[in-house]
Each structure stands twice: as C-alpha cells, then as structure tokens.
C-alpha cells in the first residue's frame, strides 16, 4: 500500500464508518428533494387544475353560458359561490381567484362588443396576491369564455338562429422534454438541486476536517512524514471526489428507483457532470480548509456561502424566475452549471455535447479553487 492509497483509504474509512452521519447525509437530500419535487409537479401527470370561483350576479342567459363554458374547461376547478363566500375562500387561500359577473352584464356586454364607446360592464377578478402568477392565466381563460358567450349573443337579432361562434383556433399543449413519451418529472429538478446542496455540505465537512486535523496535531504528524505537499493535498482531493461521487450515486439511485427520475439524455454526459461536480466539491472543501481559521467559525461561514451558492445556482427554485441580470450573473456561480447540467442530462434529455459546457465550467472552477487553496494554505503550524 503506497502513501496515496493509504491516505485515501483512511479518508473513505473514516467517512463511511460513521453510519449514522452517512444515513443522515443521504436521507436529508432525498427527503427534501421528495418534498420539493412533489410541490413542483412530481412525477409526470395531468396539469394541476386551478381552483377558481365565479359569482354570477346577473343570472342572464349570457352569464349562464359563461359559467357553463368555464365549468367545461379542464384547466379550471370551478366553484359557483356567492360573492361573500368567494371572497372568504380567496382570502383563506383555498381559491386562486374569483370572477364576479355583474348584474346587467348579459344586456350590456353584447352591445359593447361591436359598439365602440358603449358602456362596458366591469367583471371584477378578486385574486390571492401570494399566487399572483395565476391571475394572468385566470384572466386569459375568463376572456376566452366571456368573448365566446358574448359574441354568440351579439351575432344575430333576437329570435333568429344565430351562428355558433367559437375561438378561431385551438391550442394544444405539449411538454417539451427529453423524449416523445417522456413527461416532465419535478423530482428531476429537486434531486439535482438538493443533491448539489448536500454534497457541497459534505465538502464543508472535508474542509473543516483538515482544520480539526490541525487542531489535533494530526496535520503536523502527516507533514513530518516523507511525503510531498502535492501528495497530501492531492489525496484529500481524491478522497473528497470519491466520497462526493458515491453520495451523488446514492442520491440519484433513490431518485431513479423511488421517484421515477430518468437519465433521458446522455448517460456518459451525466456521469461526467457528476464526476466534475464531485471534483468541484472536493476542491471547494480544500478552499475552505485553506481560508478557514477555526473549525467552528469556518463551518458557519461555509454553510452560509454554500446556501448562497445553491440558491443562486437554481437549486431551490429554477433560475428563470430570477431577474435577467441575476440570471446572467449566476453563470459565474459554479452550482448553476451543476444543476443545469444534471437537469440537461435527466429530464431535458440532452446529448453528450450539452454536457461539455457544464463540465468545462466546473473543471475551471475546480482548478481555480485548488490554485487558491494551494497558494493560501498555511503549511506552518
């Protein structure tokens, strides 16, 4: 057994012999990813229906036609309530919105549709401000049903047969995923994010471990041995990369077996991205060891830095919800490349070529972290 093998074997033994810590390290990302994944859509299934209410104060044939049309819409989970009840339900968060069709709507709306300047009835949409993204959708759907019903009422004179009016086009929604028959799986995103987050936490422990070794005098003992600095730090990088790879494998094994996540893109690309991220984690740990002073203070700061990295990397929420300038800025955050790369190889079904940019970026960050760590590492006690 040579020195490098002995050091790596020691690190692996110490890490994996603590069964309780290992269980928590693996269970935590799986449980949290399961939660986030189910919140973000879970396994492939029909789109969620939006719970809304309609308040028909008019009770005219036109307003009844609107209600009937909305009830038939599969995108809506429609309830017909009184205005007070509807407001109470929205306020309680049980409904996203409630549309109030005012008295006289059936009379005014058909006139207003073809008469510029005519008085238009007001349809009030009460909405839950914490779910404001649903407002635009509800207003769009409402417009479609109102226009259909009102246009039908306005198209011909009373008592005459009226031509049936409908939207002049159909829309068909198709998921764009990794394959024709492969649906989007919300767990694919959550496991990428939580896997990245918790493996980075392991990287913190690797770095703090070096600081503890210093405190215990073990680092001095290792340095007294006839081995080079390159070998000492290299062994740490090697063992950290191996541990991170094994953890990623465990987390994704659970994602595949229990949550139906599939690598719909290049398997080789996925493996390469996972290995690059493992190397990134390891060098991140070394950077923490080089810049840290005491284990306690370093752990706190490193956790904060890691949480910022994973948040900006899109591990918690997809980066498309960020402002544009932030989306551009996060290209300089290594975790963004890890999360995007893992998603590209799983549900997005991208080929090996799409793995090259994330791999290149993560290798570049790894080299940068390692260079800073080696430069800043305090060899003297």
């Amino acid at each position: 057994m040579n020195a490098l093998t002995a050091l790596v074997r020691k690190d692996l033994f110490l890490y994996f012999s603590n069964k309780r810590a290992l269980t928590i390290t693996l269970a935590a990302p799986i449980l949290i990813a399961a939660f986030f994944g189910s919140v973000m859509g879970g396994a492939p299934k029909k789109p969620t229906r939006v719970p809304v209410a309609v308040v028909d104060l008019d009770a005219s044939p036109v307003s009844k036609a609107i209600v009937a049309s909305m009830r038939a819409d599969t995108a809506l989970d429609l309830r017909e309530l009184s205005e007070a009840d509807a407001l109470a339900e929205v306020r309680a968060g049980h409904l996203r919105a409630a549309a109030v069709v005012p008295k006289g709507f059936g009379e005014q709306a058909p006139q207003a549709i073809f008469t510029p300047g005519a008085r238009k009835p007001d349809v009030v949409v009460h909405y839950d401000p914490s779910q404001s993204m649903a407002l635009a959708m509800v207003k769009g759907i409402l417009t479609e049903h109102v226009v259909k019903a009102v246009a039908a009422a306005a198209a011909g004179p009373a008592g005459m047969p009226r031509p049936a009016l409908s939207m002049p086009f159909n829309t068909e929604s198709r998921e764009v995923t990794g394959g024709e028959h492969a649906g989007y799986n919300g767990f694919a995103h959550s496991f990428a994010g939580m896997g990245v987050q918790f493996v980075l936490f392991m990287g913190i422990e690797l770095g703090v471990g070096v600081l503890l070794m210093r405190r215990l005098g073990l680092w001095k003992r290792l340095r007294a041995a006839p081995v080079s600095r390159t070998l000492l730090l290299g062994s740490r990088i090697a063992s950290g990369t191996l541990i991170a790879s094994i953890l990623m494998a465990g987390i994704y094994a659970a994602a595949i077996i229990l949550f139906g996540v599939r690598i719909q893109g290049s398997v080789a690309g996925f493996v390469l991205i996972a290995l690059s991220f493992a190397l990134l984690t390891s060098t991140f740990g070394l950077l923490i060891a080089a810049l840290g002073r005491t284990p306690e203070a370093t752990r706190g700061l490193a956790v904060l830095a890691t949480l910022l990295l994973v948040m900006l990397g899109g591990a918690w929420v997809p980066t498309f919800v960020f402002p544009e300038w932030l989306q551009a800025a996060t290209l300089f955050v290594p975790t963004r490349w890890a999360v995007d790369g893992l998603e590209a190889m799983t549900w997005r079904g991208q080929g090996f070529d799409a793995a090259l940019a994330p791999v290149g970026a993560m290798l570049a960050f790894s080299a940068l972290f390692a260079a800073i760590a080696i430069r800043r590492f305090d060899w003297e006690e």
Partner: protein
Amino acid sequence: MLQARDLWKAYGSKAAVAGVSLDVAAGEIVGLLGPNGAGKSTTVAMLCGLTHPDRGTVTLAGEPVAGEASRAKRRIGLVPQDIALYEDLPALANLELFGALYGVKDDLADHARAALELVGLADRAKDKPQSFSGGMKRRLNIACALVHDPDVLLFDEPTVGVDPQSRNAIFDNLETLRARGKALLYTTHYMEEAERLCDRIVIVDHGKVVASDRKAALVALLPSEKRTRTVVREASLEDVFLHLTGRDLRD
C-alpha cells in the same frame, strides 16, 4: 547519527532559535530541556523537517533532512506532544497508515503489530483509540512513530497527562529503544525524567544552547557551594501511590 549545526529560525523580528547545534548518537538518549518559549519545539520541528531553518543544517548520518520527501526523513520518527491519532480508526489501522506514509510496503501489518507489542497494546489492535484511556493513547502515539523502525526518534513531552504506571511503561519503552541502538531526543519539562533517562542533556534558553553535557559535567557548572546538598526527602505521594497500586499497567 543526528546532527544539527547552527540552526536559526525567526518568526517576524523575533528569533525563536539562534544558533543551536546538537548531536544525538546511536544508542543514546539526549534530553532537550528549557523553559517555555526557549525554542525547544522549534528546534524539534527543524530536526524532523517540519520547519525549514533560516540558517544551518540538519543531517542524519550525513544526509540532509531538508526536503518534503527526503530519504533522511524516512529514518526519523516524531512523537508529537499532542495525541495525534485518528480516533475513529482502529489502532492497527492508525499504525498501518503511518507505516505506509513512511514507505513501509512489505509486512506492514507485522511492523504495526510489533510496534503495538512494544507499547503493550497488542491485545487492543482492533479497538479504536476513542475507547482508550489517556495513557493508552500516549503509548499508541509513540507506537505510530515506531512502526517504520526509524533510526532516530524525537519525543516531544511524551508523558504529559499520563498516570505513573503509563509513565514508567513509556520509560521502559525508551530504554528498550536505546538498547536497540536507536538515537533518541527527549524533550521534557520534568527534570526527574531527564535525570532518570538521559545520557546527555542539552539546555536551551532564549533560542540558544546554554549547556550541553552529561549530568555530572553539568553539575560541575554550578558554583562549588551549590554542587552538594544534603536533602532529607520524605516519601512522596508518588512513592505511596506506586507502593499501593503497583507498577503494572492497568490498561
């Protein structure tokens, strides 16, 4: 065997070591004594290649110790003052690790078991140090420096915090190693330990060697009226303790 010549080391503007020279021959224990901050630890760090001297040389049988992976470093064993062990790694695995770092390839397990045998821990090979008493950890700490069978051993206060039984066992280990022809440098604050064990004493203060000789010769440095003192010593608590509890190791 081990030779240090005119070692200098400064931290900032303060010289921690200022021109220390010393020799440790095979089959001899040399005591390195001095008050806190005298430069003992810095000297030991330079002797084992942990710290590069600003000036001066350290050689082992004529070979320079300097260099991260020098051949001379393979022939040195350091027993640090801290108990520098992997607490979650079995005792035997600790020894195999340090043996591998010092280039022991063949019969690594045999080397490790021999070191455990010497310090009286052969029956605890598979146990983790976290389950050991303080004295057992100290002995394992020594065994880790012996596993590669070095020619020179540097002991940095190896008896701190141990019970009298373990201390006596450590003394026995040192005497055994001396009998095997090893060169030993022993740093301590306890004068009675140095008197009992050391063939020669080097006293350092303010980074300089203030005396270096055998005990008898050092005593001659005293003014004549101070060389002889009649002391009527009452039995000490240690005498009572060892009388009642015996000298056998308990762990």
